[in-house]
């Protein structure tokens, strides 16, 4: 069973064809490295999957069922979560508040609904434990390392029982040690049966965690192969066009 399948997805903006006949299947727990040069269509593909806009043609299948997303919320409900590079976190709040941002649990005191901080802390502590991260729920995010921030962002996806997590350059702006932390988080997600689409420019990161590597070039899918059957050199060739397809 595929958790996500794309069939002949095309997307054009006026005369510009951003995606052309892209087909791709992802299994539960699979880590897919999505690679490509700037303007190759990575972001467009991610936005189509995340429901930001509909494809011009082609089908999206979630758990083998045809699905149409009209807005990002639809994709979220179908189990697709996006971890944005640095956007989705509020520095002035605690880790727990960020995990629950936009879906705060409440309890009633008489007629008023108040935020249930105790529950938020307890639940997010459990999530961080599951991710084997040392992030503490009460800590303010602006005091945290890049890796811990990613843990907060990823804990959000666990909270909503995501099936697929799209990660946009999660290792772009952080130190080497933190990169290892983030890659570990990705493995944790995969161990929990959650598929991860990792968009990254950093070849070593992709080869360390990805089961399969997908390359886009000028809107077309030019490679879709197991990471163990490929090499960074081959992928570089595919990205630049030195190698036609693989």
């Amino acid at each position: 069973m595929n958790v996500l399948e794309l069939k002949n997805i095309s997307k054009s903006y006026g005369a510009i064809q951003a995606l052309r006949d892209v087909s791709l299947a992802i299994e539960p727990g699979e880590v897919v490295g999505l690679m490509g040069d700037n303007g190759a269509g990575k972001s467009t593909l991610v936005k189509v999957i995340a429901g930001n806009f509909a494809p011009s043609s082609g089908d999206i299948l979630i758990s083998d069922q045809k699905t149409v997303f009209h807005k990002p919320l639809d994709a979220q409900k179908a189990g697709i979560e996006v971890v944005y590079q640095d956007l989705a976190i509020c520095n002035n709040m605690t880790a727990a508040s960020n995990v629950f941002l936009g879906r705060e649990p409440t309890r009633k005191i008489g007629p008023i609904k108040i935020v249930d901080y105790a529950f938020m802390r307890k639940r997010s502590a459990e999530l961080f434990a599951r991710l084997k991260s040392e992030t503490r729920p009460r800590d303010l995010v602006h005091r945290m390392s890049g890796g811990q921030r990613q843990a907060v962002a990823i804990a959000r996806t666990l909270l909503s029982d995501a099936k697929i997590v799209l990660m946009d350059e999660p290792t772009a702006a952080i130190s080497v040690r933190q990169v290892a932390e983030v890659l570990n988080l990705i493995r944790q997600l995969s161990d929990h049966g959650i598929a991860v689409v990792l968009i990254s420019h950093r070849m070593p990161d992709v080869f360390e965690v990805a089961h399969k590597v997908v390359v886009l070039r000028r809107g077309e899918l030019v490679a879709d192969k197991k990471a163990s059957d490929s090499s960074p050199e081959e992928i570089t060739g595919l990205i630049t066009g030195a190698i036609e397809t693989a």
Partner: protein
Amino acid sequence: MQKKDIGLAVLIIVVGIIVYMRNPLFLSPINLGNTANLIGLFGLFAIGQGFVIMTGGIDLSVGSVIALLGVLFVDMVGKFGVPWPLAVALMIVLGVVIGLAHGVLITRFKLQPFVVTLCGLLIYRGIARGYTAESTAGFPFGSSYPQLEWLTIGRSFGVPHSFVAMLIVAAIMWVVLHHTVFGRHLCAVGKNEEAARFSGINTRFVTIAAYVICAVLASIAAIYFAMFTKSVQPSSHGNFYELYAIAAAVLGGCSLRGGEGSVIGIVLGAVLLQELQNLVNLLGIPSSLNFAVMGAVILLGVLADQQFAAYRNRKNTERALGLLQKS
């Protein structure tokens, strides 16, 4: 209470002790009652301003709203004989309308809060002056409204009701800010609007709501001010009040960059401002220097706070490094 609030409370007490030592009248019941009344009046709309500032915005129109609604309220009740509960309700509705207008212009039309509310400042003041043709609006001679007066300028056990009203509003807003989902979202929108939006928060609603809260509290304050001064001089009533509100909010720990602030802090900020006013009066400093004293103290306070925070950060870092070296 946050650390900042405690620091501010300490500052208030220290200034209080100094003033008391120089002039014991500071703690006389009459002086305390009068100061409490002013704290209540200014605190009411400073809380609203704080909410707007927490979204990363600013509301410069508060003083003009107080003038315009004050003129309208006095005229309605005094001249046209509108029953006062109806007039109060109308003022609050007008507050909602003004807040909505600001919020919609800022979120839908993407105008800057500074510009929108600056135009508000000019427009409302202008309407107030035009409507009255520059003449002072006042209640007819000998008229009295016992219930309305009891609610606004009355006192119980020496405590002015404006102060009580401010405390009630502060308690409600404290729950709203620190213990409701809306309060969480307000902080999120103020700090990182994009993140809030990606998290599924209706950021437009949150921003508009903040401006509505601000304008409604300003309209309630307008009624209290009108009842306090009994007559409203359209060109000077409420002048610069928006700046008092901003000063109180900033003193109280609201960051003008948004996302930070506490209701207790704002109230304490309002307390400190009135204490300083009082200090100028009691210590015989020429009242023309009033603004200069206030400005200097705010500047020093903010500077000290900044330095203290930097010092705390340094200490924390040192401690963390110490722990690392040990392990």
